[in-house]
């Protein structure tokens, strides 16, 4: 039983029952290293992420959570000074292989960013963009349906259904974040990476997104970065704890929170290192 400094019982927060699908490994990373110029941001990380489960990345700010997440769909390719080495496989295929097409990879591995980044287009077009480029809708009606379904899943349909053609950038912070989630699920990716998806959301919206994650788990593999240990405890089956670029501990969420093996994990959960 671990307590954070303000004394609330972490244990008490976990109410979701966990039924971990341990059927197979979706993503496996071996010896991953990331450098930004001279900064060594990720140090020799090995991890296996199970299919159809929710994995949470936690750790103090600046420890490399976002960086590692961006390795999984090769978004780091777009940063000039970023160098990734090691081996990351999805379904056994090395995604850094020359034969792998990052475009196809990213269609399979969706992502929600830490800062909401809606396109300066209408709400409808924001969501329809992914399905359109991949040719997922055969007709306008089909597209309408995809957009509505995605916005509903993003828990934002009711708020925007009357102004689907207003610009997405005119929404409030929290709405933008939910729009980006809707956009990401619209292409039905096998893997969904979410970088702090609830940071600008109020408790009600947060609950709705957590519900979404829980449904997604039935079909997809979800990786989520979060600062809220309560949230990690609520939604994830596996938790990875990063610290200073190292993957310190990885295991069942229950175990990590109740019975951390590493001293640093324990300190972090109990609020002693930052």
């Amino acid at each position, binding site marked *: 039983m671990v307590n954070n400094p303000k004394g609330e019982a972490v244990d008490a927060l976990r109410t979701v029952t966990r039924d971990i699908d341990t059927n197979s490994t979706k993503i496996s990373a071996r010896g991953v290293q990331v450098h930004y110029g001279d900064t060594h941001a990720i140090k020799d990380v090995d991890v296996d992420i199970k299919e*159809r489960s929710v994995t949470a990345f936690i750790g103090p700010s600046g420890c490399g959570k976002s960086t590692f997440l961006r390795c999984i769909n090769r978004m780091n390719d777009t940063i000039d000074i970023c160098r990734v080495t090691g081996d990351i496989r999805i*379904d*056994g*295929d090395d995604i850094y292989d020359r034969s792998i097409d990052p*475009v196809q990879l990213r269609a*399979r591995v969706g992502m929600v960013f830490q800062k909401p980044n809606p396109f300066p287009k209408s709400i409808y077009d924001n969501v329809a963009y992914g399905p359109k480029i*991949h040719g*997922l809708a055969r007709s306008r009606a089909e597209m309408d349906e995809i957009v509505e379904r995605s916005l509903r899943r993003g828990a934002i349909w009711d708020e925007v259904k009357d102004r689907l053609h207003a610009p997405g950038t005119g929404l409030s912070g929290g709405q933008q974040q939910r729009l980006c989630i809707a956009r990401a699920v619209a292409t*039905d990716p096998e893997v969904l990476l979410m970088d702090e998806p609830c940071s600008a959301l109020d408790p009600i919206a947060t609950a709705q997104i957590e519900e979404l994650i829980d449904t997604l788990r039935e079909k997809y593999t979800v990786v989520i970065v979060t600062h809220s240990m309560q949230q990690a405890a609520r939604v994830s089956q596996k938790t990875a704890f990063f610290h200073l670029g190292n993957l310190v501990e990885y295991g069942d969420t229950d175990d990590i929170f109740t019975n951390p093996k590493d001293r640093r994990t324990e300190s972090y959960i109990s609020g002693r290192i930052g």
Partner: protein
Amino acid sequence: MTDIPSGSGAVARTTMDKVHGSLARRHRKQLILQIFGITAISLAFLMLFILLASLITTGHKAFTQTEITLEVFIDPEEISVERLPRGNFTNVLAAAVAADLPSVDQQDRAEMRVVGGILSNGAQFQLRDRVVEEPELIGQTITISVPVSDPYDQLHKDLLDRETPENLRRLDDTQIAYYDRLVENGAIAASLNTGLLTNADSRFPELAGLKGAIMGSFWALLTCFLISFPLGIGAAIYLEEFAPKNKLSDFIEVNINNLAAVPSVVFGLLALSVFIGLFGLPRSAPFVGGLTLALMTMPTIIIATRAALKAVPPSIREAALGLGASKQQVVFGHVVPLAMPGILTGTIIGLAQALGETAPLLLIGMNAFITSAPATPFDSATALPTQIFIWADSPERGFVSRTSAAILVLLTFLIMMNAIAIYLRSKFERKW
């Protein structure tokens, strides 16, 4: 991809199948875009290359100058201390050439004139200046290198075809024989044409240089820069950051954009009537040229600066304002430095345009023939583009290559300006 037995996997698979099905087509589209891009840029470079290649093929010959080295006896009978700087330097030089040509009868005046014609008209003045400087040389024999005249220079550079019928050539067979003889003696050789940069303009291609035009362009561009840069940036910053946004400022914006479309001659016209007519400033002066060019450059600088200022994210301004920085501290401390790369691009494009501008300078008389370089911005001068314009219109063959050479010199200055811009730009460039 591994087999996923469950029904949920089926959805994912069809999605991925659809993605996969369209992928080849999408990549082909990307490839086509890339090919278009490469084609476009290659086309642009091809044009640049053709332009430069044609300039270099004709222009490179002007970077050497054929010279003749002579042993000159400074005959006191022709040149005396009392009459300096006057004196019969031509005869003295002709005699020196004839000394190398045994077949020439030194008493035959017509023949001696032909022999003297091998030398450039400037040779006599070079010798004169030397003698005036050291009068004790009179009566002695000195070695001197002087340029040959244009037809011989052409001959030496293989621009004059010996195969053309004699009556159509600028040099007849005797003259070519003289030349061959002098080459055999080792008197004639080509050397680097420093005169191209150190001489002012001349009627004689072999003497003509760009010093006057370069100085003229320098003064004009300096004036243009000193006026248009602060005025343009000041106006742009004020209009973009401080002026109230209303119909009036819209109107001003449209007007400034419109100024960029005003033909450059009209600026020349304005300069003619205002600067020369009203203010009584001198004709042909680089200062007036610079003022005129400044009027033209200003809109370009204003437009570029405003675009660059607009691109600075508002969050930066908010951050500084939130700390209690004044509007001016925000603008000059944060926004302008961040906009600097864009501002510099615009300024360089504007100044480059000004450097190559011809039409307005024609109207204010900067296309004059002046054989001395300006010492101040108020002296009469030409500018590089107008010099090119004049040389291009000169009948002498020697000016053909010199025109190209002058263009190359102009382009060199341009490239230097661009290089400075790139350096400054990379220095100021920041990412956010």
